[in-house]
């Protein structure tokens, strides 16, 4: 019944800009990308409309990562304190990683934490809390979490890419299978690539970068092998 109240003026995959009227009626779910003025619904960002079961959703072209509890993130150590590390998580908020949230046992006060994680190190972590008046806290306790000692990390430009690749797992599966690499894309717009060889890693990075710079083409798993051969040809990789 609720959905019948909503009248939409846009179609699936339409491009919207701030101030575009997308429909009239009641919105069931709050979205920061839809501004409600009376019964009118306006887009607040430059993005693409996705309509599912009569409900509009806007996927912004560019956005800032706002931490959410349980998000998997790749962080870079920015600073080392007495009992914590400050971590850049590609967000306006710097995360804090306490020693107690690492697998390390009690650390003696005089011990230098740089021995374990130094400035510039990459970590795979999980957000455990984020409140308005406190910076986000992250943890390294958990399966597969910890320092990323091998492989390479890249950063995506477009939020839509992260969203679409995260959702289309098949595309990543195809890439992993074809090149023999493992790719992990995290919520904060970074990816970790680890492969059997340097070339495989570099090829995977080039393919991901190519997807990043052309975010509006629909990708299917079969496109991946085409992209790979294209990248290999250009880069002279056998």
């Amino acid at each position: 019944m609720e959905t019948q109240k909503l009248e939409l003026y846009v179609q699936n995959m339409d491009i919207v800009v701030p101030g575009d009227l997308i429909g009239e009626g009641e919105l069931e779910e709050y979205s920061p990308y839809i501004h409600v003025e009376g019964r009118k619904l306006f887009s607040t960002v430059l993005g693409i409309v996705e309509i599912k079961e009569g409900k509009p959703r806007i996927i912004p072209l560019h956005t800032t990562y706002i931490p959410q509890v349980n998000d998997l993130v790749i962080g870079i150590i920015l600073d080392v304190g007495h009992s914590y590390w400050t971590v850049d998580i590609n967000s306006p908020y710097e995360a804090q990683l306490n020693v107690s949230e690492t697998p390390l046992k009690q650390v003696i006060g005089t011990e230098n934490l740089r021995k374990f994680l130094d400035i510039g190190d990459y970590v795979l972590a999980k957000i455990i809390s984020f409140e308005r008046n406190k910076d986000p806290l992250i943890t390294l306790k958990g399966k597969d979490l910890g320092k990323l000692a091998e492989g390479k990390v890249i950063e995506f430009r477009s939020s839509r890419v992260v969203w679409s690749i995260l959702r289309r797992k098949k595309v990543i599966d195809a890439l992993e299978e074809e090149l023999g690499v493992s790719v992990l894309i995290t919520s904060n717009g970074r990816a970790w690539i680890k492969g059997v060889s340097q070339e495989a890693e570099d090829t995977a990075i080039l393919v991901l970068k190519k997807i990043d710079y052309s975010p509006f083409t629909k990708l299917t798993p079969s496109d991946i092998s085409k992209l790979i051969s294209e990248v290999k040809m250009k880069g002279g990789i056998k």
Partner: protein
Amino acid sequence: MSELLFDPSTGLRHDGRKPDEMRPVKMSVGVLPNAQGSALVEFGKTKVVAAVYGPREALPRFMTLPDRAILRVRYHMAPFSTKERKSPAPSRREIELSKVIREALEAAVISELYPKTTIDVFIEVLQADGGTRTAGVTAASLALADAGIPMRDLVAGVAVGKVGGVLVLDIDEFEDSKGEADMPVAMMPGLDKIVLLQLNGRLTRDEFKKGIEMARNAIKTIYVLQKQALREKYEKEGEA
């Protein structure tokens, strides 16, 4: 002097425009790759570039607000933007304009989404020929949209003036200095809300109402151009 500004026999202004005619407007988005969002707006000879950085961590910390992002706007005229060299130090006028533009943009930006952060907006006037604040606010709102910062609506602005007893749209430097009144207006056209309104000189009530109406119509045209500029950027990225 008034005949120089406005010729009643032909009904044309000193540059050949009709009273309700704007100068040619040009807009492009994403002109500065280093900035998170940027835009270049031209109203005739007036040329303004805007760059947006953020939301990012606010420094100094005491400036931050616990419930929303702060908006910092710097309106600045380049030393080479005027006929005579302008001192690059911020003048009283620039400080005031930074404030009114900030207040106009604050109405549009949904700053509650990013508590404790700052959004920095830099507006640089490259060439000044009247209407720089309205061109500035137009460019800044495009740059904010380009940076992906959620906004209730885009902000567009234009100035209405009075020369030779006639209301004219989008006044230039000459009309501004010799005319009887200058009224910059900025709006969120989609929501039909005025976010910036200043008046230099005198207008009667009827003139004021007519002036607002003229500005509103012109702003709607600018709004269409703004949306077009944003869409063009989107399409360009799609092709890349």
